[in-house]
């Protein structure tokens, strides 16, 4: 018995423990958290590429993205179709070239509720909220790449994993890749990201 205890003790001395690594990940996430707390607004352009099995070729679209703390979001596609949505809290607008404008109420619509919550959490890197839904690990440290795996089976039915590439500029997302269970994936690359700049008036309501 004594020998076993001694052996285990020596093991802990000579091999770096799993908790040691986790602490390092935790420190990185804490640093992101503290940075995210300082974010009041974000504006960015994005290029979205979809690699879907139903298409023979990739689907490319472009648009703009705006965020204002705590819960206002505008996700706007400018090409190939003009469409998107703007939400503040639970209420907002959705528009597209075919149906025109429509009011949305995220509280009464599980689809919008989930979508807006997730997009806000990803875009502002709200680690606390993301940790409620995902197991987060650090895949690469420099430049930082995070891997997120949904905790619930229903969520994994939509996204099997999520890879977030951070830019060299601290706290700014460079690229997000969503993988679906069938390995279809969507890549969103952000360009010209501005943090805490003033945003056009009424942008989240029209």
């Amino acid at each position, binding site marked *: 018995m004594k020998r076993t205890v001694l052996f285990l003790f020596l093991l802990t001395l000579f091999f770096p423990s799993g908790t040691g690594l986790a602490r390092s990940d935790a420190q990185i996430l804490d640093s992101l958290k503290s940075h995210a707390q300082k974010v009041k607004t974000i504006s960015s352009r994005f290029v*979205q590429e*979809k690699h*879907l*099995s*139903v*298409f*023979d*070729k990739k*689907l490319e*679209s472009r648009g703009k993205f705006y965020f204002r703390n705590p819960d206002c979001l505008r*996700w706007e*596609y400018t090409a*190939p*179709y003009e*469409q*998107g*949505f703007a939400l503040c809290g*639970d209420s907002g607008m959705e528009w*597209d*070239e*075919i149906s025109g404008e429509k009011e949305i*109420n995220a*509280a*009464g619509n*599980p*689809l919008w509720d*989930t*979508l807006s919550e997730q*997009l806000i959490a990803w875009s502002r890197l709200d680690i606390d909220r993301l940790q409620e839904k995902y197991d987060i690990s650090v895949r690469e440290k420099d430049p930082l790449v995070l891997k997120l795996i949904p905790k619930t089976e*229903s969520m994994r*039915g*939509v*996204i099997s994993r999520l890879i977030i590439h951070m830019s060299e500029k601290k706290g700014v997302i460079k690229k997000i890749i*969503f993988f*679906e269970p069938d390995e*279809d994936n*969507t890549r969103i690359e952000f360009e010209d990201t501005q943090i805490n700049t003033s945003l056009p008036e009424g942008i989240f309501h029209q």
Partner: protein
Amino acid sequence: MILSGWPKKVPEISQKTALLVVVVLSLASAACIYLNRDRASEDISVMLPAGDEDVLRDMRFLRNSPWADKIFIRLAAGPDISEDELKSAAQKFADSLPEKYFPRVMGMENPDPRAFLHFYLSRLPLLLAPQDLTELGKDLNPARVRERMRENHALLTGPRGFVLKEAVRSDPLDLRRFFLSRLKGLRGFAPLKTGKGFVLDKEGKSALVTATCTVKPTDSEGSKDMLAALDRVRAKTLPPDIEYTPVSAHVYSAANARIIRSDMNLVLGISLAGLLMVFGLFLRRARALWVVLLPACSLLWATAAYCLTFSALSGIVLGFGAVLLGLTLDFGVHVYMAGETGKPGENRAGKVLTPLAASGLTTCFGFLVLSFSSISGIRQLSFLAVTGIVIACFFALFILPALLKNPGGKSRDRQVFSLPLPRKNFLWLWIFLLFLLGCAAPFIRFSGDLREVGYFPEKLKQTEKEIKKMQGGRQGNTMFVAHGDTLQDSLHLNDILYRELGDGGRDMASISPLLPSKKTQAFNLAAWREFWDEEKREKIEKWLTEAGSDFGFSPSAFDSFFRLTDPENAPQRITLNDVHRLGLGDLTQLFLGSGELNQAVFSYPGSGNGAEQAFSARAEERPGIHLVSESEMRRRLGGSVKKDLLLYAGLGFLVIAAFLLVIFRKPREMFLAFLPPLSAVLALTGIFALTGTALNLFHVAGIPLVIGLGVDYGIFMVYRGRARRDVNTPEAVFISGLSTILAFGALVFARHPALHSLGLSVLIGVLAASACALLILPAAGRKT
């Protein structure tokens, strides 16, 4: 007088025999009541008119509606409580609700929208009705298919594309629009932010927890325990700044029981003090306590007879019966007062035999008329009252004299009051007053609403309104009920109703779009197969592949849709279990009946869209489907009860008048004997009409007691005037009236509307009847 030939002496029995009879009969009756106690119910349906089948049926539907077994608990946050704190407290509260009382807390499920869509899209052939396919037929051309492809392309590019990829694959023609448009009516049930086990209002300042209860609202003890358990959860989980208000039938029952208890403490105190005063001032002897035994024994023995005669016992009938048999105290007081005038040991009961028998018979005949009522409870009440009065007469004449052991020797037959006005004028003045009250009586308002005689605290009323607002105003006021022999039959009827009323954009909330009956599913599938014939399938495949290719879709992109149109592939039928598995159990709970009507299906029309009128216009054509409106049902119920009660109370009054004529033969004496009950009823109705007070069911319930007592007073006083018997009749009438006013009139101090109403009726009626008997009849009698 018809009773003049009756023996003037009653057979005498010894005190021992009398005591033995009382003890044996009381013990036997108590045992009988004890053995039958579990059969007594508080079911209000016993007071519903049998003739109005619609009211009875609607009452049954309401009692077994999806809302009937639910409790709603509103948690209101104080100014210092944030939305997150409220959410966390509400979830903790919902999680801690004991399963013993609350087996299902709504909102604990987490429906997956993607799984929901996938399930229903794979069953579109079972869901689309023939008219949807006709509409679809107009869309089947190359140009329209191309347009759909563009829409699909845009959809997959945009934000919704994350969750709708599978929807585009299996439904490239957007057939789901037919199905999704029918779910519009269900949005009224979820207009708020939802959490696990609760919903939140728009402002995030109040949360609503809804749970199913195991305890029936009529089980007052169970309700008390359940609410106590709820209080314990509150103390354990909610901070003091969160106000908690539960709303359910249980809470109303408990509030009513509490207020009745508090009222009874007050009223019993006043009554006891008053009765002691009457006892001390007028009776003064310990043996007078035997008089009190008379109503107690008559109630006990009559209740035992009631238990043996009826298979279903009503707590309401027993309660009213107890009040009604209070009038038998009168008989005991007359025998006691008569005994005061005789020689020591003499049985003077024979001196009041004729008026007592006449009074008992007249009252019995009055109550016998009620046995023809269409209200089962009134018929049972009639049995209880008649049995009780017969027993009371027997007790008063044969048992009480032996128990009283009359000391005799005192002649105290004197008039209690002397009149300040010339007596002749006073009689005419009284009649004129009655005439005026009689003229006002037809203008009396009648309220049959049972809710108005219940105790509804203001705070609960307010919370109920707020909860209804949180639920989108749908909760249970007006509903359609599809009621077949089985759940499938009911679902089929529900489909018919929905098709006729809901599909026209009437915003009706129904389970039909999510759970059509087997028959409807089979019918829709047959129509689908007929629609997708070989030629149409080949065409659509060609157009979809060509247009899809232009937008970059792969050739196999829509294979799952082509499988759906293949007649060889029949989708699996939608069942209730499927709906539960998708996490929609809470939703089905709002549409499926509870209790004995768990095979009925409920649906709710949108407000102000004419669905109720459209249904009512053709109600006859839809057997098995019913429109139930709580307010309308209460109005009709009130009307029926009013009609029945007034008809039989009026008939009873006429029978009493006729019987008095038979007894006295002389119209003048008959009129005088009839004057006290007439005064009581006219005073009651006239005062209510003049003060604008609506007569409710409990006011009416006091009327038979008032009439019974009034008849007694009249008969005894007229008999005294005619026979000049030395039996202390005025004093007996005075004591009887005073003790009734103190015992039942004290209820006027109660805060509970039902008790207050009963007390007010008795107070006005007995005051008028005893005033008439003591002041007017002696004047009229002297004139004769």
